[in-house]
Every structure is written in C-alpha cells, then in structure tokens.
C-alpha cells in the first residue's frame, strides 16, 4: 500500500461496522481504565514493577506469584511509564487498613489513576488482538464479513472482557490471545509459532495446557496416513514450545527461582491463600480450592478424551472439528466455580462457534457471561482509587458499601459470599448449557458435522 493510499484506507475502514464497534469498545475501556480498579491485584503490579526497578527481578522479593511472562510485560510498562513521566504509582491509606481483614482480598495500598491506566494498556491491546483474531478466523472460515463483525462485537463489547481488562486489571486476555494465536497458527500451518505461542499462554496461566491434546489431535487428524508430515509438524511445534519456554525461563534458571515462579499453582494446591476472617467462607474456599485442584487431573483426562473423539469422528470437516473441539474443551475445563477472569479462555472459541456454526449458542454464552460478570463486579473496592484520588466520591462511602456487603445474610455467609455462590452457580449452569447445546448440535448435524 502506498503512503497516499493510507488515509483513504483508514476512511474506508472507519465506515465499516467493525470500526464503530472497535471505537465504542475502546472508548468504554479508556474511560474505565484509570477510574475503576481492583486495588489488590493492581497494587501487586506496582510492587512487581518497583521490585524490578530495585534490581530484584521478579522473584528476588516475594509479591509476584505468577510465571514470568506477565512480569516481563510489566518490565516494559515500567519503561513506558518512565518515558511518560509517571512518578506516582500509589500510596498507603491508613483509613483503609481495616479493610485488609475483610472477606476477599483487599488492600489499603491504592494505585493512582495514571498508574491504573498505563498498567492496563497491555490488556487493552490484547483485547483488540483477540477480537481481531476472532474476526479473522470467522472471516476466513465463512467468508462472511457480517458474521465476522458479529463475532468481533461479541468479544470486544462483552462486559466480562471489558471488566477483566479495564477494571480488574487482570491479564487473562493476554494468555487468551496467545492461546487463540496458537490455534490460529496451527490452523494456518505455522507450527513453530503455534508451539511458541502455546508455551507463552501456558506460562501465563496453566489453563491453556488443557488445549494441547486438541492441537495434537488436529495435526494427527489432518495428516492421517502421512506419518512423516504428522511427526514433522508435532516436532516443529514442540521445538517452538520448548525453545520459547527455555528463553522465557533463562533468568529464573540462572538465579534459581524457577520454583518461586510456580507459586500460583503450589499455593493453590496447599488450599489457597485464604485471608478471610469469615470462618464458614474460609473453610468453603479452602476445601473447594483443594477439590478443584484435584478435579483438574480428571479434567485433563476429559480433555484428552475429547481430543481422541475428535480424531476418531472428525474426519469430515476437519477444521470444523478442530474449532468445535476447542470450544468444548475450553468450556468443560471450567465445569467448576471458576474465577470469572478464567472463563475468558472459553469465550473466543465459543464466539467463533456461534458465528460460524450455530447461533443458538448465544443462549449459553449469555448465561455464562451474565454469571461471570455479576461474579466479577461483586467487588465494591473497585471504587477506592476513584474515591482516593478524585472528588467524585468519598473513601468512607466506598468503605460503607464494602462493610454492608460483609454483613451476614445466610447461614453465616456475608452478602458478598452469597452473591459469589449464586453467580458461581450461574457460571456452572452456563458451562453445562454449552455442553447440552453441543450434544443437540451433534445430534442434528452429526459428529463434528
């Protein structure tokens, strides 16, 4: 494209519905990003950045509980904020110290709106890129611009996606982006990149690991009878994954902090970091978390079986079998009361399926997103930064709202805990509905038909 053609191309793009959706989604995010934030997680991003600035890397001092990839992204954002002259990351507010003992995870350290804005930029970018990939996959598979735009809208305007990235400040959309990229690259035959992308996704959060069986089964299915190509593709993807994982972990291998980087998993196996003072709720969470950890082993087996089934029955439209199996696997692995942000992994594949194959899946999509979004927004502390750094509302008002949610409602459980239980049930119903709709779709269209 020549330089003089660019403005014309931009104007043409802006006239398309997808551009309107993009702009609307961006405006909503840009307004929310600085104003509302979940201080507990975002203050840990400030802590991580400042540990990097102190020369302690990601694990020299405790406070960063995830694998290194997100930490490296924070390392970049540290430089970006420096360039933009951001000096004020946050402050400890004495009047909020007591909220740290509330049920849930709350902090008296509140990050500033400008910090909130900058630290969420990578999530904003990944939201756009996931939307783009969803659009691209649907467009390539169907050739229908309208369907692709519909898919983009379902992702980019989804309240759960907007909340997770722009309010919560959690990086789930980044590992979702790498997961979708991995599937897309494999679909396009770029195995090295597919493997590398999967490695990054898994090293952000473990859930994409469940998808690995589908990816392998897809290659095997694609090249049934051609053992050489099959082996070459799997080996290439494995090399991509291995090399990328090694590159990512070089600093931790050198300084002996590999085990520290796995705290996200190991702390949960121990029953999870329950800090709550609500006896019933603490016990429930601790027990539930242990149960969920062990359930993962069973779900791993289920994911493998689903992949095997695709290999056996997906010989017709292999690509449809692939995207269907991705959707089903990314759903079934969350058939437990997952944190809302985890469910982001389900959405792109579900959306692709809705737009490409069966629009009736919009019902389970709506149920799932409603449950997960209500689960996520059950958190009054997101107003604390706004109250602390602007005159829009008072800190005491937000604290009153938080205290009200902490009051007992049912069986010794607080309102906050009851809402979490109810919304978690809706989430699980959403997942079950996906599986029921899938069975109906299979009955009507045949296995992967």
């Amino acid at each position, binding site marked *: 494209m020549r330089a003089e053609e660019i403005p014309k191309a931009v104007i043409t793009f802006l006239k398309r519905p997808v551009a309107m959706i993009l702009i609307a989604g961006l405006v909503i995010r840009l307004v929310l990003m600085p104003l509302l934030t979940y201080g507990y997680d975002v*203050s840990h991003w*400030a*802590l991580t950045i*400042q*540990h*990097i*600035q*102190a*020369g*302690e*890397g*990601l694990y020299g*001092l*405790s406070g960063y509980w995830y694998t*290194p*990839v997100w*930490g*490296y*992204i*924070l*390392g*970049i954002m*540290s*430089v970006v*904020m*420096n*360039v*933009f*002259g*951001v*000096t*004020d*990351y*946050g*402050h*400890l507010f*004495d*009047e909020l*110290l*007591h909220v*740290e*003992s509330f049920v849930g995870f709350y902090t*008296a*350290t509140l990050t500033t709106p400008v910090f909130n804005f900058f630290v969420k930029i990578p999530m904003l970018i990944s939201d756009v*890129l996931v939307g*783009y*990939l969803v659009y691209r996959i649907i467009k390539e598979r169907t050739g229908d611009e309208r369907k692709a735009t519909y898919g983009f809208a379902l992702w980019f305007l989804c309240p759960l996606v907007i909340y997770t990235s722009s309010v919560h400040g959690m990086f789930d959309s980044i590992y979702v982006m790498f997961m979708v*990229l991995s599937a*897309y*690259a494999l679909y*396009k035959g*770029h195995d090295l*990149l597919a493997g590398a*992308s999967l490695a*990054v996704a898994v090293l952000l959060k473990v859930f994409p690991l469940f998808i690995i069986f589908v990816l392998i089964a897809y290659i095997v299915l694609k090249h049934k009878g051609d053992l050489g190509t099959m082996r070459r593709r799997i080996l290439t993807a494995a090399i991509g994954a291995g090399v*990328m994982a090694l*590159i*990512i972990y*070089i*600093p931790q291998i050198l300084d002996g902090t590999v085990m520290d980087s796995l705290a996200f998993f190991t702390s949960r196996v121990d029953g999870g970091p329950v800090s709550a003072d609500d006896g019933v709720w603490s016990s429930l969470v601790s027990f539930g978390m242990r149960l969920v950890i062990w359930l993962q082993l069973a779900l791993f087996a289920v994911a493998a079986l689903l992949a095997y089934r695709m290999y056996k029955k997906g010989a017709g439209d292999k690509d449809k079998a692939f995207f269907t199996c991705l959707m089903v696997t990314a759903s079934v692995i969350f058939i437990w009361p997952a944190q809302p942000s985890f469910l982001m992994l389900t959405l792109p594949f579900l959306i692709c399926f809705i737009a490409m194959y069966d629009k009736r899946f919009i019902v389970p999509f709506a149920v799932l997103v409603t449950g997960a979004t209500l689960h996520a927004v059950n958190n009054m502390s997101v107003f604390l930064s706004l109250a602390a750094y602007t005159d829009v509302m008072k800190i005491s008002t937000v604290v009153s709202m938080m205290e009200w949610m902490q009051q007992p409602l049912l069986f010794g459980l607080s309102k906050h805990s009851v809402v979490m239980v109810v919304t978690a049930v809706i989430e699980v119903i959403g997942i079950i509905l996906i599986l029921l709709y899938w069975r109906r779709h299979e009955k009507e269209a045949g296995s992967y038909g």
Partner: protein
Amino acid sequence: MVKKDAALVIMVLIFSMIIVGQALSYFAVPYNYGASAETTSDGVMYTATSNSSVSYTVLAYDNAKPIDTLHIYYDASHAVYGTSHASQKSFISQLSAELEIRGFVGSVKVTDAAGLLEVVDAAYEPGDAILITSGVLPKGVYDGETNFKIFDWVRDGGSLYWAGYAIGGKYADGKTLMDAPATYQSDIFGVPDSILTEQRTSTERSGDLSKALMLSRTNVTYGLNVTAVPDTLSVGFEYTAGSGDVYSSIALTQYDDGMICVMGGMSRTSIAQIIASGITPSSTLIGTDGGSLVRGGVAERTIPLSGETDVAVQIRIGDPNVVYARTIFL
C-alpha cells in the same frame, strides 16, 4: 501478502516485546538512583538523584544510632514458634534484600545458637545488634529463670530487635519448646502485662514518625505496653486494652544503656525500615520533604535543623514500595 500474514507478524512482534521485557527486568535494568546529605548552616541539605521518573520522600530525625553489625539468629536445630525453619530462612533472605535496597551499610551475619551465645558472652561492641525472628531464644542465652544473658548484653548497650512471639515467653532447649516462668514479663521489663498476648490488630497509627518511616504493620499481638514500660517510643499502630494501657505493633524501649525493639507480627519491610533507619527510643521527627523527578534529575533541598543531635536523614525513592533508600547519619 502482508495482509495475509498480519496475525503472524503481530505474534513475532509480541514475542520480541516479551524478550525485551525480560532484558529490562533482568539483564539490562535501566534504573540508577543516588542519595546523599550533609549539614549546612541552614540545616541538612539532601540530594536525591534518579535517571527515571520517580517520587521520593525524605525524613530527618534525631538521636539516631547506626548499626554496624546485625546478627540475625537462625538455627535449624532449635525450636521456633509459629513459623517453620524454611519460612524463617526465606524471611531472613528477603529481609537481607530489603536491607540492601535501603543501603544498610552494616554487616549482616546469620548466627546459630552457639554463635549467639558467643556474641552475648563477649564484651558488647558498639554498633552491635541482634535480630530474633523465631519468637524463641535458645536456652544458652535465656531460660527465664537464671539465665538472662541476652538481656544483660542489651543492658550493656546492645540493641535487640524482636519479632515472632511474646518476648521471653518461650525458649528453646534444642528442638524442645519450653515455657518461661509466668512472671517473665515482669522479669524482663519490670512491669506485669508488658506484652499483649491476645490476637489484636489496630489501624490507629502512633504518630508522624511512624507515617514518615512508612511502617505498615498493624498486628499488635505480642506488641509492647507503651503505657506501662518506661522510656518507650511507639512507632507502630496502637491498641488500647480494657485496662486503658496502650500496646504498639512496633515499639522501642530504652533498656539501661541498650535498646529493645519489639515488633508484633512479621513485616519484612517494616523491620528493614526500623533497622536501616537506626531510630532509637529517644528519636523524634525533625522534618519531612519529598517530590518527584520526572524522567530523571536531581533534587537538592534543605530541611532546617534547630540544634538536634545525632541527626540522620533517610532518603527514599519509590512509593508505595521502596526501590532505593539511603540513611545518612550526620
């Protein structure tokens, strides 16, 4: 062709960014800081420098006493209370890193029970301090009945920093945890109920020095009774008991020629701050200052003095978490 592979080009770009982020976090960390201070006719002039965008805080206080050697007690062959040896080891490692960030110039020595006995048996060396994070003293230096060696060492001028349990409440006879006599609080501090043994937290900050030092520990359990124990400075969060006595999550008390700092709970940043600052029970806040350096620069300002002695200035860069700090004893 370009359009066709746009997603893959984006992927490669993102991979590159991650590698760049890795380099910026580990191999090419681009941040440099500096701090200094000196007395002038107007007071104390401090300098804070940075090559990046930062906020900084400065505080000046008096009656400060630097620590030359910090002996941290750790002995895997002796009992601990409310913690494990692995956690204690990790805590000490992290605390050492926090002290390094704060430019603690004294030497840090991790010492076992035998080493601790050697320290308290030897004549007190000015600048020596002991940190106990296990909540339990080894029998060689304390048994609550006839052996008070570690407290005698403090009386001679030593500094004892304490965390983990009620000070003097238990001691370790090897792996066996022993209870000290019930009168241990009076035996150590001369007054009963000198330690809070109930589980309590507080959000009532003791004062400006506490805020200026950015101390954040709110757990008052095992904190010192700052009402009953004389010559005590409270720099933590305060809980008022039914008796009207006030207990503090962090308090320093004069102990003849030495000092005991009692900390409720365990906070590595607060402990590091207290030790690096060198504050004593008679320290008072002279003044504070602060500001920002946008994309690097030098801040040079003066905090006025009015005849205070043993003044120290702590210059901290980074908020809410310290990325660099220096304490200059003038």
